[in-house]
């Protein structure tokens, strides 16, 4: 099996924040922590507004793992980047290192800012017994151990947010772009998928 990944289709995302709500509800994420959020650019500009849902991207070469001074990160066999909250010291290095702002720190504790780091777990819990109360309290629900995908992706009403094996969701996205004939003009398409076929032609002068 390849690696678990998220893929968000900016052509489809309608900024409904359903994924954010699904994540909050499924994992009972504390106040002040957003494991997932929707980012919008060109807000209000007709034809130019785009939204994308962002969370931990479960990087293959994760910068958070590289900078953690107590080495509390690990990668599971299915490519999910997780961490041990018992070991985390809440220093915030991972937050500075992450290009997506995925690591979050609870802000409602007795000492104000910076509790132990919390982030998207791809709904696969953490280093506690699977489906246990301890795991749920620290990391949220372990849907992968139940044979399910992350709640955010499965709840997405427009199926803009895809989650699962990287190869499979890349195939879904490629087929979608081919059918609708739009999307292959994005930067990197040629690198990822080669030359588009059928209705999906790259825009003139696009970098791919």
């Amino acid at each position: 099996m390849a690696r678990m990944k998220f893929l968000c289709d900016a052509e489809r995302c309608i900024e409904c924040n359903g994924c954010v709500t699904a994540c909050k509800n499924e994992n009972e994420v504390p106040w002040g922590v957003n494991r997932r959020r929707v980012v919008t650019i060109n807000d209000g500009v007709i034809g130019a507004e785009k939204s994308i849902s962002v969370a931990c991207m479960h990087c293959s070469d994760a910068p958070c793992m590289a900078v953690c001074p107590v080495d509390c990160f690990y990668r599971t066999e299915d490519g999910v980047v997780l961490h041990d909250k018992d070991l985390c010291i809440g220093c915030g290095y991972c937050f500075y290192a992450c290009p997506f702002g995925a690591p979050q720190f609870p802000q409602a504790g007795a000492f104000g800012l910076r509790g132990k780091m919390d982030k998207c777990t791809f709904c696969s819990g953490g280093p506690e017994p699977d489906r246990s109360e301890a795991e749920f309290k620290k990391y949220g629900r372990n849907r992968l151990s139940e044979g399910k995908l992350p709640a955010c992706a499965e709840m997405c009403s427009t199926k803009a947010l895809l989650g699962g094996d990287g190869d499979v969701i890349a195939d879904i996205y490629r087929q979608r772009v081919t059918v609708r004939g739009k999307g292959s003009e994005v930067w990197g398409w040629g690198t990822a998928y080669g030359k588009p076929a059928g209705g999906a032609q790259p825009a003139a002068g696009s970098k791919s």
Partner: protein
Amino acid sequence: MSARTVVAVLAALGLAALAGCGERPQAEATYKQGKYQGKPDTRPWDNAPLAYGNDKWTQGNKTTWEDELKGRTLNQNENTRIGQ
């Protein structure tokens, strides 16, 4: 007590006092820089499917769990779902 014995006793006492300045290693012996230091995690396919679900993977069998998850992943593709 001879002078030599006094010197020996004082030297021994000095050495014993110095031992208090030593420091035990405080990191675990197994610590390796750049390696995960936390608790080991279990793997998702080592769990039995939920009793009330429709999942059909065999506990401990990664391939069957992957098949189950792949079916679920492909379910996100409405281009193939429509018309079924």
